C-alpha cells in the first residue's frame, strides 16, 4: 500500500472514532474554556489587567488542554492491540505516527484555535490582535502535539504515566510559549509580528522531522514492557 492511501485510512479511522465518541475532542475544549474563566475570577475583572495577561493566559490554558488530551493519544490503541499491529506492519512507523498526530492535532487542537478569538473577546483582548492570536495558535499547536507525542509514546505503557507525561513534556513547551505570547504582545503594541510567527514556523518544521522519528522509536521501546 502506498503512503497516501495509508494516510487516508488512518485519517478516516480517527475521524470515525472522534465522531462516535466526541467527548475525547470536546473535553479538552471545555477544559480550555473553564481554565480561562478562572483567571478573571482569580486575578481581577478589570479589562486593562485582563488585556495585559490575555495572551499568556490563553496560551497556558491551551498548553494544559493539549497535555490533558495527550494521554489518550496512544493509550487506547495500545490497550486494544492496535498499536502492536502497527508495530508489526511493514509501513514506516514514523510516517504512521506523523499522520496520526496531525489528525489528532486537527481534531483536538482545531476547536481550541476556533474558540480562541471568543476567549480573547472575554479577556478584553483588542480585536486587532485576533489574527495574530489565531495564526500563532495555528503554527504553535501542531508543535505542541508533535512534542507531546514523544512524551505520550514514552509513557504509554506505564502505570502513573499521566503525571510523568506532564513532567517530560512541559519543559519542552517553553519556546513555543515564549514565541507565541510574544507575538500576541507585539500585536497588542502594534509592532510587527512576522518574526515571531517565523520562529514558530521554524520550530514546527523542526518538530515535523524530529518528533515522529523519536515517537516511533519510543513506541517500539515501550512495547517491550
Amino acid at each position: 500500500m502506498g503512503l497516501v492511501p495509508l494516510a487516508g485510512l488512518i485519517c478516516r479511522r480517527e475521524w470515525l472514532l472522534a465522531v462516535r465518541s466526541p467527548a475525547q475532542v470536546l473535553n479538552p475544549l471545555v477544559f480550555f474554556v473553564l481554565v480561562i474563566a478562572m483567571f478573571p475570577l482569580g486575578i481581577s475583572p478589570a479589562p486593562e489587567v485582563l488585556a495585559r495577561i490575555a495572551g499568556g493566559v490563553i496560551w497556558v490554558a491551551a498548553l494544559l488542554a493539549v497535555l490533558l488530551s495527550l494521554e489518550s493519544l496512544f493509550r487506547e490503541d495500545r490497550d486494544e492491540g492496535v498499536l502492536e499491529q502497527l508495530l508489526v506492519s511493514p509501513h514506516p512507523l514514523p510516517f504512521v505516527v506523523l499522520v496520526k498526530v496531525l489528525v489528532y492535532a486537527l481534531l483536538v487542537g482545531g476547536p481550541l484555535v476556533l474558540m480562541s478569538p471568543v476567549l480573547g473577546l472575554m479577556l478584553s483582548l483588542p480585536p486587532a490582535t485576533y489574527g495574530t492570536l489565531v495564526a500563532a495558535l495555528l503554527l504553535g499547536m501542531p508543535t505542541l502535539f508533535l512534542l507531546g507525542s514523544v512524551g505520550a509514546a514514552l509513557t504509554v505503557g506505564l502505570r502513573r504515566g499521566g503525571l510523568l507525561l506532564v513532567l517530560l513534556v512541559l519543559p519542552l513547551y517553553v519556546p513555543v510559549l515564549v514565541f507565541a505570547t510574544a507575538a500576541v504582545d507585539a500585536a497588542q503594541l502594534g509592532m510587527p509580528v512576522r518574526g515571531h510567527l517565523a520562529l514558530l514556523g521554524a520550530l514546527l518544521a523542526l518538530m515535523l522531522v524530529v518528533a515522529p522519528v523519536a515517537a516511533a522509536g519510543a513506541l517500539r521501546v515501550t512495547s517491550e514492557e
Partner: protein
Amino acid sequence: MGWLATWYHRWASPPWFYQMSGRWTRGLMGLALPLLCVGTLWGLAFAPADYQQGNSFRIIYIHVPAAMVAQSGYILMASAGLVGLVWRLKVADVVLRNCAPIGAAMTFLALATGSIWGKPTWGAWWVWDARITSMLVLLMLYLGVMGLGSAFRNEQAAGRASAILALVGVVNIPIIKYSVEWWYSLHQPATFRLTEKPAMPVEMWAPLLVMVLGFYAFFGAVLLARSRVDLLDRERRSRWVRSLVAEHAI
C-alpha cells in the same frame, strides 16, 4: 581506525569497564579534591573583592562551575544515550542513567547558589533572570529523565526510553536557552546580569578556572563510581561478577 575498534570493544565490555573505571575513579578523585580545596581557599580568601558587588560575588566560585557541569552533564548524558541506542551498549546505558541524578544535583546547586546570590544583588531570593530560568528548565529536564527511567520495570527498555528523551531534550536545549534569553531581553532590557562581566582580572578568574576543573573531575569521579556499582548490580548474574564475588568472599 584499528585503534578505535579496539578502544570501542574494550569500553563496551562490562568487566573491562569495571576494572578501568575503578582506576579512573581514584585518579579523578585524587585530582578533584586538591583542586577543589585550592580553588575554594583561593576564591574565598585570596581573590580580590568585586568593586561593585563586594564579597558577595565570591559565590560564583561555586555557582559557575556547578552550572557549567550541569549543562555539559546533559550533553554527556545525551551522547551516552546516542551510543546506547545505536550500538546497544549496556555500559552507555548505565552511564546515561547515572548521569541524570548527578546532573540534577549540580543544577540544583547552581539554582540554590544563584538564588543566594540574588538576595544581595537584586534584593530578592528569586528573580526570573534568563540564566536562572534556563537552569530551572534544565532541572525539569533532568527530573524527567530520572522519572522516566524509574517508571519502567524492564531495565533495557528504561535505558532506551531515557536515551530517546535525553536526545529530544538535547535538540531542544539550545532553542529553550535562546527563547528564554530572548524572553528576558523583551521584558527586562539592560539590567545587570549574573556572570556576564566585562573582563575579569586574572586574580579573579584563575581560581574560577581551578574550581571549574575541580568540579569536572569531581563529576567524572562520582559518575564512574556510581556507574560501576550500578553495572555490578545489573550484571549480577553474569560469570565475571560471580567470579569477582567469589574472589572477594571471605
